[in-house]
């Protein structure tokens, strides 16, 4: 996302105005203190695949940021085993949590840094925003925007795929199950088979549980709402497990509503079977690390769930 793209985002600032820094930021924070060494920073960057780490004091105030460039400099100056405190403190450019989309875009195009800490009212660090975080928020918002629009289809196949590092070959997946079932009593076979498949592949038990629950909710949705015809596709990579569940049913009228706990369009007889409580998608959101739903009225639902694997 270069400055030119930022101009485009600027034009749509009204549409994105609810994307405040607090909503955009990644709150899975990795921080270091000045007592840590450059070497430690280097290790974390390598393992977590990140290019910068905020340095905080005992009160969680950001006092510096260490980047890949600092590591390279430390290496060439033989300072790699030294404490980060040798690096001169500088004023860190930070966003406030209530800063709006316009402000975030302005920051990104003005400063050109890789990451921006987000701080609370009393200046403690609460999150971080990278260009990737902003991109993801924009795309998530767009999938709602394009709900009834043909262009929306492209979201699942192109730009997102780059974003989620999704190298799945949908034609030859590692796991594929065809859902063909309109009886809710039989729903769950695909998820059960996926569970066994993941067990055979030696995936961590905790992760299997999260995946099974999410896939099961999605499979039940296909049977209850999606006309019962669809498929479950899964792929294991070194970093993640990606599960697609799609159907060719009537589509979701409003994704925003479907994401709301307690909202359901399920008929009474489905509720009597213990489903239709409006918890399905919120449950999936809880267990999946990333969830992308695209839908269009009359054209089915595609759900992509991503589960990060723990570093071994």
């Amino acid at each position: 996302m270069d400055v030119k793209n930022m101009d485009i985002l600027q034009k749509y600032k009204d549409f994105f105005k609810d994307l405040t820094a607090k909503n955009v930021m990644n709150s899975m924070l990795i921080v270091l203190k000045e007592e840590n060494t450059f070497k430690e920073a280097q290790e974390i960057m390598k393992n977590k695949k990140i290019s910068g780490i905020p340095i905080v004091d005992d009160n969680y105030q950001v006092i510096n940021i260490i980047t890949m460039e600092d590591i390279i400099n430390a290496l060439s100056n033989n300072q790699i085993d030294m404490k980060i405190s040798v690096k001169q403190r500088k004023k860190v450019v930070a966003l406030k949590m209530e800063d709006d989309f316009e402000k975030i875009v302005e920051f990104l195009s003005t400063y050109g840094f890789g990451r921006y800490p987000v701080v609370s009212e009393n200046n403690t660090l609460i999150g971080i925003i990278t260009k990737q975080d902003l991109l993801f928020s924009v795309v998530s918002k767009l999938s709602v925007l394009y709900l009834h629009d043909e262009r929306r289809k492209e979201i699942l196949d192109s730009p997102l795929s780059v974003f989620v590092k999704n190298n799945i070959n949908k034609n030859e997946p590692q796991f594929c199950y065809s859902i063909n079932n309109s009886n809710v009593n039989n729903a769950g076979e695909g998820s059960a088979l996926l569970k066994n498949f993941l067990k055979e592949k030696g995936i961590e038990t905790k992760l299997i549980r999260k995946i099974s629950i999410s896939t099961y909710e999605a499979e039940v949705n296909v049977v209850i709402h999606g006309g019962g015809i669809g498929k479950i596709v899964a792929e294991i990579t070194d970093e993640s497990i990606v599960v697609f569940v799609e159907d060719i049913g009537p589509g979701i009228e409003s994704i925003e509503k479907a994401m709301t706990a307690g909202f359901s369009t399920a008929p009474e007889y489905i509720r009597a079977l213990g489903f239709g409580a409006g918890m399905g998608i919120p449950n999936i959101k809880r267990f999946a690390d990333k969830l992308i739903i695209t839908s269009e009225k009359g054209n089915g639902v595609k759900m992509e769930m991503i589960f990060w694997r723990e570093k071994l």
Partner: protein
Amino acid sequence: MKLKEIMELIDAEIIVGEEYIKEMDIKHVGAADLMSEVLAFAKEDSLLLTGLTTPQIIRTAQMMDLAVIVLVRGKIPQQDTINLAKEVGIPVLTTKELLYTACGKLYNEKLESC
């Protein structure tokens, strides 16, 4: 708490899975008639009290790694539920107690929520 003791406490009978329950130890209990509520449970190896008897209780238990299902109000599940329970190895019990009473008795024994 040993499942055997729980069974005595709420006077439960085994419908499926006698072979699994002998040494089973239960720490967490949940009660729900909505499968999506169950799917929001946090803990595995829990005991589930429910009034539902459809095969979905078995699927849900399988996905959640639940230990055992106890049906309340003396319900006996339909045959496809029993078949699926056998197939996936989830024990199913039944008690004549009401859901509320069964919960109360187990809660009294300091069994934690799941």
